[in-house]
């Protein structure tokens, strides 16, 4: 019981990390219907850019987030036409071809990462990494690590910013129109190609920024991508594919399951529980937690 407040807080904080890795992906899926196997690799590349930039400039890595975002958003924007070509194949199943395309991309990025960054694990040194707030009342205590709190704040900020853009800007309306009906949107003068490029750019930029945050909390390596790809997929699907508002709740659910299992049950069964609960939720609610996925 002593640890109950801590378990709840930890669940939220772990959930925050899951939001950061899934929110951009959910947006990209909602608009482009792309299942991107390389999401973890974008996170990895972003993390290493953050590491090298902070080593080179000696600036606090968290302040470099906008730089990382811009670099990768441009990269994603320029890259999207290739994916677009794959996605518009007429025969067979374009969705699957995109899956295989990004799978190839992920392998190549990983090889590139191993060649350029080397094979050792690294860590992005943030001044915030060691700070924490501790609240004590009687035997109860809660420790909130600053860096994780920043992660959660970042996750919520990105989620709010994305929903604002989608609801309140012309660009957002174009994105929504595209997500709902490609042909009709085209008739209304919306360029699918350009809008998709922006969406893909934003998604890649967000994923890369998340990599920097992850590097401040954990270790990073050229091999790290796969792990994050899996969880990114899981959160997005649990939320309902393309349903942005569901992402935080799905992320918090997975976070809570982990923190409670680690603290109250046999930690060895943590991931088993995560996967079984994910499976069970999908059986009960086949279109994500809220039944609102596409």
């Amino acid at each position, binding site marked *: 019981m002593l640890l109950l407040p801590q378990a709840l807080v930890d669940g939220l904080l772990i959930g925050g990390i899951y939001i950061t890795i899934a929110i951009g992906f959910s947006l990209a899926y909602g608009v482009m219907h792309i299942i991107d196997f390389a999401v973890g690799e974008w996170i990895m590349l972003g993390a290493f850019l953050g590491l090298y930039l902070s080593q080179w400039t000696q600036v606090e890595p968290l302040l470099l987030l906008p730089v990382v975002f811009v670099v990768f958003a441009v990269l994603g924007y320029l890259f999207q036409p290739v994916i677009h070509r794959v996605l518009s194949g007429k025969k067979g199943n374009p969705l699957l071809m995109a899956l295989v395309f990004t799978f190839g991309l992920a392998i190549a990025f990983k090889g590139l990462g191993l060649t350029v960054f080397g094979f050792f694990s690294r860590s992005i*040194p943030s001044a915030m990494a060691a700070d924490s707030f501790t609240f004590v009342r009687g035997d109860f205590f809660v420790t909130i690590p600053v860096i994780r709190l920043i992660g959660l704040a970042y996750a919520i900020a990105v989620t709010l910013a994305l929903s604002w853009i989608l609801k309140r800007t012309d660009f957002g309306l174009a994105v929504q129109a595209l997500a709902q009906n490609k042909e009709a949107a085209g008739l209304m003068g919306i360029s699918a190609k350009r809008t998709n490029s922006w969406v893909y750019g934003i998604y890649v930029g967000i994923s890369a920024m998340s990599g920097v945050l992850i590097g401040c909390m*954990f270790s990073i390596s050229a091999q790290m991508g796969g792990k994050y790809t899996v969880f990114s997929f899981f959160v997005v699907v649990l939320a309902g594919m393309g349903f942005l508002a569901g992402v935080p709740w799905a992320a918090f659910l997975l976070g809570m399951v982990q923190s409670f299992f680690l603290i109250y049950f046999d930690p060895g069964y943590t991931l088993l529980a995560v996967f079984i609960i994910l499976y069970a939720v999908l059986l009960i609610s086949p279109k994500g937690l809220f039944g609102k996925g596409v």
Partner: protein
Amino acid sequence: MKSAFAIMSWMLVALFLVLPQTAAAQRDYYKVGVITSLSGDLATGGNVTKRGYDLWAQTVNAAGGIEIDGRKYKVELVYGDAQSKPDQGASAAERLATQEKVDFVLGPYSSGVTLAAAPVLEKYKIPMITGSAESPMIWLQKFYYTFGTIPPVNYTGASPVETLAALDPPPKSAMILGSNDTFSKATAEAFQEAAKQAGIEIKKFNIVPAGQDLMSFMSVAKALKPDLVAFGGHDEELINLVKALLQINYTPKALLMHYGVTEPAFVEALAKNAEQVYGASVWTETVHAKGDYLWADAAAYAKDAEAAFKVPADYTQAGSTAAGIAFMAALGQIKAAPPLDEAEREALVKALEKLDIQTFYGRLKFAEEGQFYHANIGLSPLTVQIQGGKPVIVGPPSEAQSTPQYPMTPWEKR
């Protein structure tokens, strides 16, 4: 339909034509297979072993080669990436044995790959020395052609716990955890066994999924307040655990891990927060060792390694280089010039079994029987602690070069 089968047949024919590449029977150098994981989950360790093997080969060749009957023969390394997968390890072994016709093999980093590759090499009667496969399971299989220079973790794991128990006052309670992979689990179990022997109360013992975010689990530590936190895991997990303790802001009196703390990446990633972490090792660059082969002592080796790779050498790399030295010494004894035939390889195994030499890495002596069959038992397990950014030997007393710092300086006072 028909054309498809035709295409398939042609592709397969092309495959057959491309694949067989029989090595010339006559050569005046040793062809040495290297099976290790250059990619996949265990790429870090695999690449460190590769550096160890490479450094051995470079140094041997720079000196003209291995001397047999007054003539020097160079060595050539041929790599097979096991990709951290047992089946690829077996394929690599088969390729090196049949395509490349290697004389002997420098072996994998992980136990899974070793267990799959070893039977294949047994079949072709090709001796293998693995520089770093520390799972106790390997040696229980009693592979005749497989040797190892690094002792298994149940041989080394007890030392740091014994060093800690000898302190005054010693740690009274412990929380022990291990990642759920074969090496890490065995490490945690070795720590647990040693703690029991030393009379340290074990407040919690758990095996956690590999790669798990451990912050929540460390809040349990914060509640239980054990003096000692001991963790069996691989490089990135060790960094994650220290960062988790930092984030939850709990400093145990002693934090113990295994070989991973001697990897340069550990200190580089954590900087001041790596200070005072304990580890188990059999080699550091300051260890007392007088070498009769290639390097006169550990410091000389460390200097060459630093020059070659720009990072300090850890014991995995040293053990891998020592594997090459073991072959070199055994070859010198049986006086077999390349290429080796089956009888010569058989003699090589016999020579390895009898081998007892002093190297920069320490004494090399492979066990001939028992649970450590063919693992190196010539070394004494060391307790190391990160002091001033370097792993320093703090135990056992006969080997210690510095005193253990205990308890740890709290994170916020660093």
